[in-house]
């Protein structure tokens, strides 16, 4: 049994695949940047003295992390019109769900990073009269942020993988585009192999970069994992 591989048709359909890849990239960029912002808010919330705020932070993080991403996505797809009264679309649902998803995991990274700054730093900052916000902004976060970077890198990789979930809502990202091509051309083997190679080709160097960063940070003291 030998299968006659033929990748030629894919070159012809290259622009289609590229379009899918760009959509994947857009979704990733939006979800990652808003996820980092959401995560910062909830991450800090999980370290503040107020019990209520800490509780809210915990509920958010636990709820998102213990629900499969696919269910989140589908849920927002149907629930957005009711919750905020907007016309729902696969794109919007994916953006919201993946942002909140990344936000929950990032919050944990921020929390661990902040917790890794020793108490003496807080006290020293308080001793010179800085407010809580200023202690956080100027003393604690700058020290914590270096240790968080490798973990955020890993989050970026996981998010890139998660963007494929949007294909289940027929959003035209890379995997969905590939599926359409595969069905259209009766060439699933080449098409899905190509997609698989594209993802590994992009994510593997990123992953090694994270490992490298992690070692550097570990050598300079203090490891943060999500």
């Amino acid at each position: 049994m030998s299968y006659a591989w033929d990748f030629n048709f894919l070159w012809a359909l290259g622009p289609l695949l590229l379009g899918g890849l760009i959509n994947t990239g857009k979704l990733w960029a939006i979800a990652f940047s808003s996820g980092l912002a959401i995560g910062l808010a909830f991450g800090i919330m999980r370290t503040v003295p107020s019990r209520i705020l800490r509780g809210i932070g915990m509920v958010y993080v636990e709820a998102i992390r213990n629900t499969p991403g696919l269910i989140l996505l589908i849920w927002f797809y149907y629930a957005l019109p009711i919750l905020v009264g907007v016309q729902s679309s696969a794109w919007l649902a994916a953006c919201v769900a993946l942002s909140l998803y990344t936000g929950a995991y990032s919050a944990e990274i921020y929390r661990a990073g902040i917790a890794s700054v020793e108490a003496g730093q807080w006290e020293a900052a308080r001793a010179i009269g800085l407010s809580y916000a200023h202690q956080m902004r100027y003393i604690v976060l700058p020290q914590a942020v270096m240790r968080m970077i490798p973990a955020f890198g890993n989050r970026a990789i996981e998010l890139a993988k998660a963007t494929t979930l949007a294909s289940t809502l027929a959003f035209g990202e890379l995997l969905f585009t590939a599926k359409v091509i595969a069905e259209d051309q009766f060439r699933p083997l080449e098409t899905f192999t190509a997609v698989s190679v594209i993802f590994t080709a992009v994510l593997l160097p990123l992953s090694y970069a994270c490992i490298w960063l992690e070692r550097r940070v570990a050598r300079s003291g203090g490891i943060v994992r999500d």
Partner: protein
Amino acid sequence: MPYDWNFTIVLRYLPQLLEGGLHTIILSAAAIALAAPIGVVMGVIRQQRVPILAPIAVAYIDFFRTSVALVLICWCYFALPVLIGVTLSTFTAVTIAIGLQASAYLAELVRAGLQSISVGQWEAARALGMGTRLRLQYIILPQAARRMIPVFFLLVIEVFKTSTLAGFVTYPEIVYEAYRVATDIYRPIETFTIVGAICFVFLFSLGRIALYLERRYAVVER
């Protein structure tokens, strides 16, 4: 216009949803059963730097840990049958996809576990005259296993989450059943809210068990 929530109608379909859940559990168990032996072997080969085999293990692990689960599922379901000329059931295809990916994560877990055992333990076993197999079997793996159990539970949780993707290729797991129920009764939000809640309770409990095990097996050294 406020939305008129109606959960009671969905609850009538609860058995169907739970059956989907059961399929998710069976699928996850099969994937883990496939992943466990491969993962342990690959992890040991990599950590021990076995000549010739180690680079193969590294390539295997690197490929699968940077692959996307849904892409692998599509590949195994749509592409693999073309390659080998045999039709695979959705269950088989998804088990292979999720199992192989999980085996790569597990291999990394095993490697980290072995690595975490101090050099002194390896040396003490060597000084007694133990060969590699005896060292791994009696000294290193039993210690590494204790440290790996909590993280292994986290891996199991990830496998469960990944199994919900199997509906994409029509395996009747919980999300697939939820879609069927939702289209039957035109109540997608309520259906997926309940499915989300079921998953949350299940995964949250697993997470707590992991936490408990982590405390319990925290190794007190010296």
